[in-house]
């Protein structure tokens, strides 16, 4: 069972340095249709030094804190029973190579439904200018036995 007392719990910032190679790798993995990313890996140095990342790239910067939170024993997530229920993203500002991103996390809500428990997790990512680039709300469902 999820522990409802963790609602409101916040998690310390985790940093991530964005580079051209990672943006290119992510764009290729997500079959991004933009011709900007179409170069093969061996021509990656032809990409601009300040390369704009696809909108959802923040998930790369958020993955460490996401894993950290899901493994927080205080919450009590039964990992094999976990499903991704729904997702919201707000894209406030583009991400570029050279950015230093910092993500913080917060448990927004825990709800006991009929067949599952629901956890809403907020991740907010800012850049080196303290500008929010992306806010994500991840709704995680834990199946009941």
């Amino acid at each position, binding site marked *: 069972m999820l522990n409802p007392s963790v609602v409101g719990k916040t998690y310390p910032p985790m940093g991530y340095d964005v580079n051209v190679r*990672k943006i290119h*790798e*992510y764009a*290729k*993995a*997500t*079959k*991004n*249709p*933009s011709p900007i990313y179409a170069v093969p890996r061996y021509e990656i140095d032809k990409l601009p030094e300040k390369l*704009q990342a*696809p*909108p*959802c790239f923040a*998930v*790369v910067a958020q*993955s*460490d804190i996401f*894993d950290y939170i899901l493994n927080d024993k205080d919450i009590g997530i039964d990992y*094999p029973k976990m*499903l*991704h*229920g*729904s*997702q*919201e*993203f*707000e*894209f*406030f*500002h*583009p991400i570029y190579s050279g950015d230093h991103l910092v993500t913080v996390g917060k448990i927004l809500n825990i709800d006991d439904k009929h067949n599952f428990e629901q956890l809403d997790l907020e991740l907010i990512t800012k850049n080196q200018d303290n500008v929010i680039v992306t806010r994500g709300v991840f709704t995680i469902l834990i199946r009941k036995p």
Partner: protein
Amino acid sequence: MNRDNIAINEKIAEIEIDKYRPIYYAAASGDFNPLHIDPELAQSFGLKRNILHGLCTIALVVDAVGSKIGNPAAVKKFKCRFVSPVYPGDMINISIKEIEDSIVELEVINQDNNKILDKVSVHISNTVPD
């Protein structure tokens, strides 16, 4: 950004999910949950085989919209519910269902016309930061 590029009921993308897509996405995102990369383990959890990451499906949809309107940075907000898994070999079809002001509602289905995502909405903006 040009919202005139989109029309209701228009299919904006048809994307094949190849066998290796979950592995590429795991490497790019750092999400190596075995449900996404190990077909046998996924079957032990009642799935047909390994499934694509939900966040990869979202990226495919957001990028398809951004590409269609001509500026990915004009996509300001995205919401969806996950209703069915995406398997390697599937075809994802993305269509415009409704357009109201700055909100575009999408249909995201597989090759069998089953919904992959539900309540899919994208907010797009005319003002884009540098």
